[in-house]
């Protein structure tokens, strides 16, 4: 069973985590195809993704760079690096 090596809580088994998938920033004022791409499409090819994991017992979030081919965790990313402004979207007139 895979271990996730996390700051503060050390190595915890993957079964204590919820997987929230790759970090995706919602685009502001996106046209229909850009928005549909954001909602549905994913970077599905094998490679390094920045993903969010939620550790249920502590309620803490962890962001890892993980190679989805080898399952190797390359590093942990600080939440501030992936923060984004609240998007906005005006109804087309």
């Amino acid at each position, binding site marked *: *069973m*895979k271990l996730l090596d996390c700051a503060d809580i050390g190595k915890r088994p993957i079964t204590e985590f*919820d997987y929230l998938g790759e970090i995706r920033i919602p685009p502001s004022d996106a046209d229909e195809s850009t928005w549909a791409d954001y*909602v549905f499409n994913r970077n599905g090819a094998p490679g390094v993704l920045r993903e969010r994991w*939620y550790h249920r017992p502590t309620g803490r979030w962890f962001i890892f760079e993980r190679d989805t081919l080898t399952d190797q965790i390359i590093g942990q990313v600080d939440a501030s690096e992936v923060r984004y402004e*609240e998007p906005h979207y005006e109804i087309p007139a």
Partner: protein
Amino acid sequence: MKFRLDPQPLEWIDRSESVSFRFEGQTFSGFSGDSLTSALLAGGQKLLGRSFKYHRPRSVLSMANHDVNALFQSSDATNIRGDVTPVSEGVDLRACNVNGTLANDKDRYIGLLSRFLPVGFYYKTFHKPKKFFPYWERLIREKAGLGEINTSWSATRQPKRYGFSEVLVIGAGPSGMQAALSAAEAGADVVLVDENPRIGGSLDYQLANEEAAAKVRADLKSRISNNAKIRLMEAHYAAGWYTDHYVPLVGPEGITKMRAEQVIMATGVMEQPSVFRNNDLPGVMLASAAQRLIARYAVKPGQRAVVLCGNDEGYRAALDLIAAGVEVAAVVDLERVGKRGEWAKQVQAQGITVLDHSAIYEAQGKGALSAVVVAPFNGKGCDAGKSHVIPCDLLLMSVGWAPAAQMLYQAGAKLGYASQAEQILPRELPQGIHACGRLNGAFTLEQRLADGSRAAREALAQLRGEAVVSELTVHRDTQSHSHPWPIIGHPKGKNFLDIDEDLQLKDLINAAKEGFDNIELMKRFSTNGMGPSQGKHSNMNGIRVLASVTGKTIDETGSTTARPMFHPVPVSALAGRRFRPERLTPMHQWHLKHGARMMEAGQWQRPEFYAPSTAAGAVTAAQREQSIVQEVQAVRSGLGLIDVSTLGKIEVMGPDAGRLLDVVYTMKMSTIKIGMTRYALAVDDSGVIIDDGIVGRIAEDRFYVTATTSHAAAAFRTLSLKIQELGLNVRLANLTGSLAAMNLAGPASRKVLSALTDVDLSEESFPYLGMREGTLLGYPVRLIRVGFVGELGYEIHLPANAALEVWEKLMDVGSAHAIRPFGVEAQRVLRLEKGHIIVGQDTDGLTNPFEANMSWAVPLKSKPWFTGKPSLARLKNSCERRLIGFRLPQGFSPKSSSEMPKECHLIIQDGEISGRITSIAYSPSLGRIIGLAMVDLPLADANVPMQVKVDSGAFVAIEPCATPFYDADGARQTADLTEVA
């Protein structure tokens, strides 16, 4: 004929304790410490089983947990492996997969048909004509499988436990013992595990009579037992290697799931059979099997033996036979005795005839070995013309080894064929993985010990984060211990390559000829290695055959994927204890005492309805229906109380609290006035409804949020996710378990509650959808006027430890107004009468708010942003269906339930599916059946009766009507009804 030898120096049996058991109706007695096979052999029972396909007589092959032909079954267990299962008093065993008895198996004639059953024959026939296939299939299925299952067996579960160690050494043979000692003596915390009941491995059966080994053995074993840093786990096998050095160790008491930082594989090698005609006869066995029988169980494997040698170890086995009083008629060497070592010289010194450049061309005997045919062998095949017969009842095969490297492959190691050793050896090992001993090509005792220390040294360096260059190959033997081609063809076949699956040499050659000429396709078409021993004694020879047929090297041919489990693992050990978390509300016992029938809601248990206390046990459908109707009427006319403690309850605090809720929920939450609440609808990025609840404002920067039972954890997680994503200054408190909640609903609710709380319940100071804090019976409480069930009512949220007392007080004070507890089913009817949706019932995985007739909850213009907004903007004008209310004519009551419209029955128009019923129930308040249906447009807007197809296939007309069905203007939940009419 005596089969039990005099006491052996290292025997496992306790001669003072005899154990008797029955096999095929006959009584046998062995000693405690015997395996079933050794005790049967000691009792003269040589025939142990019948082969899977041809039902040929079979006996011992390995004594190493590969003997799939010595499988037994008893009244409470199946597929019992005779070679490794200890005898137990009184067990009554039968052979597996025999038609009749073991001795008289009526299916033994199938062997005669083998000419007509070539490899993959079952793909080539039985399918035409199609209607006869089921008949053939039943015949084939009856012959399939091994042991029998008794479906009335009860579930047995063995507890599991986690284990941790810095260094895990798998295999306690000489190299494993040395590795464990070196690691422990260097300060590491070590676990040493071995699948046998005692450590020592081949040191104790292959070198049992070796002087030099005796000192080493005594020294290693005493240092291990005295070393506090070594935890010894005997009789445990490693089921496989899993991510991050996680190795489940399977023992008689269940599984220990071992997490290690470094893993040293000292799993040794598996002896391989030679392939020649009738190499499956009882009496033909691997040399190490005979040595195990002699050294461990003091069982004489035969009277007169021939030993086939492709390496030095065969001569060692010959010496052990002589020491055990077995006459060795001859040693047949695939090459020449001249190239062998010391043991060969000792054999010759005893005057044993040794036949160089020879092989076994054929084994003979009816039901058991009686003679072998020896013929000159040039390394590729035999010269049958110059063969001669040697009578014997025991033939040992010592022609070579395959590494027990399954877990190395699973861990991602790279291995390759070393022609010098004629064995597949490790080349690249991943971090934390080490290999030593015969698995790594070290074969002499000195090499194996030195390799163990090396592996430990490298493991310790990695453990301490020091860089280390691996000297993996330093202690490997220079000469080979395996013959590259122990495979002898024969025109009449029956030269078995996979003894489990009854696969002959020609089957593999023919499979390759038919195009299945890569290792994976050959395995699947021929089933080589797909039996219960998973190719431990057939994969290596299979690779050699395919390589020779295709002219490729062993490495180019490759090997099939080595999958867990190393040995089959009992389901009782895998399942372990039954841990299914169950969460109860503070009123749980009260509910049970008052006739509640509970239902599962995620991990929670909730009352579905309350049966009359007279009804014990199961309740009839009519009683259930009647209880629900009474509960609904109580809420409508007097007073009802429902336990809603399972709701998600979250406090949201901080300057950005309002902004956070505006992002997560569709409607504006930041404009809620203090002391008021608002319905909260949540959609995902694609605009699909995922949850709904209530948001109440406690202060400028503090809100209280409720979510549905099934979505509570996800709601909290979503809020905390948005805080991090947007960097909002908000704090959360998940109070789902800390607070209990109950909804007191009904015209008398204000009257009853006002007597118990200091909160002013008057309509002016506590209006509908208001939220007030205060005390109730002295406990801090938060009251919310919610509209779900559509009566004047108060959802009471308070600390969980105060809940039962308040609940009982309300029931007591409420009795004057005929208060009744009500459950989920009554709540479903009450909310339906008000036209409220239930997320997950009236909506499905794709429903958006416009389809759910909730466009009022989607403020596309007034809010700059909320989750899913752009999707909803798009979906607004492409809505294809809508949720509408409907009712059935007054007094509609069909004869049978097959005529009654039910939830998920379809609305059919012009033969097309045009919608489905999502909710339907008899409404006691309106005296007729009402419901909600998701109906395609334009039918939904046409406001015309619609046809529903019921179970019987008939159509029932339903009449659309506006919702809410009951108290449309909401007067009852907003009026000041201080007195019940």
